[in-house]
């Protein structure tokens, strides 16, 4: 606590930097994932290929990926763009599968009914498919958010400013309080992001809040999601 009091300004600046580093990958990753997921679901062949390729991308450990980025992008080694792009890749890799599952989980009869009532394919996607897959998309987005916030700390190993700085600095100067502060700050950001997403979900998807008994399917999906992970 004492350490935090005397270094509050530093922690606050790093927190802001951390947020700035992790928000774009979450948002951009989500936006990119939807069309990719749609294409993946559209054709049987593309689904297999896209999901396998993204699965392999997701397998690349983060530290090496941060190091490959400058070569691919032509950016300087210490640029924060490297970390942002790498985190976006992870977000897409994680999100596309969930989005594909979500779009596919929409009841086929509902889609048939929508077509029968005269929705065009385009209208049907925006007004029926996308909103109905909302709950699954949301659960995927929450996973992406938590893992991105956590992964952003590793950027500090390659010199990109984030809360990970507190780990590195705390280790070099042997201050446990500094490291603990960093861990707690990361967890707080993750929790706040999660709450924001849940609230956003309630506003955008008011119909999806079901009875407790009906939630087993959703929570099983949640459990299944959780058995996958990032580092």
């Amino acid at each position, binding site marked *: 606590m004492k350490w935090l009091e005397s270094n509050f300004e530093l922690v606050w600046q790093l927190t802001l930097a951390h947020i700035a580093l992790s928000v774009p990958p979450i948002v951009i990753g989500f936006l990119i994932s939807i069309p990719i997921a749609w294409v993946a679901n559209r054709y049987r062949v593309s689904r297999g290929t896209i*999901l396998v390729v993204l*699965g*392999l991308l*997701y*397998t*690349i*450990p*983060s*530290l*090496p*990926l941060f*190091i*490959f980025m400058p*070569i691919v992008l032509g950016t300087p080694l210490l640029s924060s763009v490297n970390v942002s792009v790498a985190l976006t890749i992870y977000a897409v890799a*994680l999100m596309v*599968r969930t989005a594909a*599952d979500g779009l*596919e989980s929409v009841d*086929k009869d509902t889609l048939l009914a929508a077509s029968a009532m005269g929705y065009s394919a385009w209208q049907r996607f925006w007004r029926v498919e996308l909103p109905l897959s909302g709950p699954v998309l949301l659960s995927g987005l*929450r*996973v992406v958010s*938590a*893992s991105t*916030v*956590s992964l952003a*700390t*590793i950027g*500090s*190993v*390659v010199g990109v400013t984030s*809360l*990970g700085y*507190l*780990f*590195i600095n*705390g*280790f070099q100067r*042997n201050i*446990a309080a500094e*490291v*603990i502060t*960093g*861990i707690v700050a*990361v*967890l707080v950001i*993750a*929790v706040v992001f999660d709450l924001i997403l849940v609230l956003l979900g309630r506003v955008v998807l008011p119909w999806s809040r079901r009875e407790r008994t009906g939630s087993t399917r959703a*929570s*099983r*999906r*949640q*459990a*299944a*999601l*959780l*058995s*996958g*992970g*990032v*580092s």
Partner: protein
Amino acid sequence: MNLILDGIAWILDPANQTGPGGWFARLGEQLAYTFGAVAIAAIIAIPLGYLVGHTGRGRDVAVSLSGGFRALPSLGVLILLGLGLGIGFRAPLITFVILAIPPILAGAYAGFEAVDRKTIDAARAVGMTEGQIVRQVEVPLGLPLLIGGIRSGVLQVVATATLAAYVSGGALGAFIFEGVATRNYSETLGASILVTLLALILEGVFALIQKLVVPRGVVAREIKEVRTVSSRPRAAVGSPIQEGK
């Protein structure tokens, strides 16, 4: 792309391969961390996950625990333990155990939960004891998801084991940090390529194992469904199989 070639040249250079500081040894350390941590995590998490999955008790705790751990920054935990336990292999190993527990726990209980309640009800109705239901019904039917969880655990640890070198714990990360410190980019890249290849190979191996452990009766349905209905071939057992990282 020349840099990549430099990295490959570093890998192929015999001088970097053998001896205690060579990448053969470092790769061995990386694998030892991976399987050691996953084995310890499995001993802790599988019984716990089975208990949660069979009884349904403590489910909410397990779900939020698995979810919350995802946000836990492994670098921070590693360094904190490093400060407490000193440099060496202990802090990394404990960190990786902590890292591997949530996915294995989730795989174990999700596997049990994925079993149709009616099947379990029927097993009970024909006179299976609770132990027999666990051993003869829930464990075999939940195995694909458990292996999925172990697969996630292995891949997370093998990736994160790179950080062990930060507290002088060895493994392939040693080259990455050394290369960054001495501006020897080909060394950093060479090790990065090795870690990536290792992760991809393990991913492939586990994908194969997972295919093999799906009970044949469950596969039988898949084949049938693909033929008759087009869209949802792997609803019951599939999603987390490829969910792993």
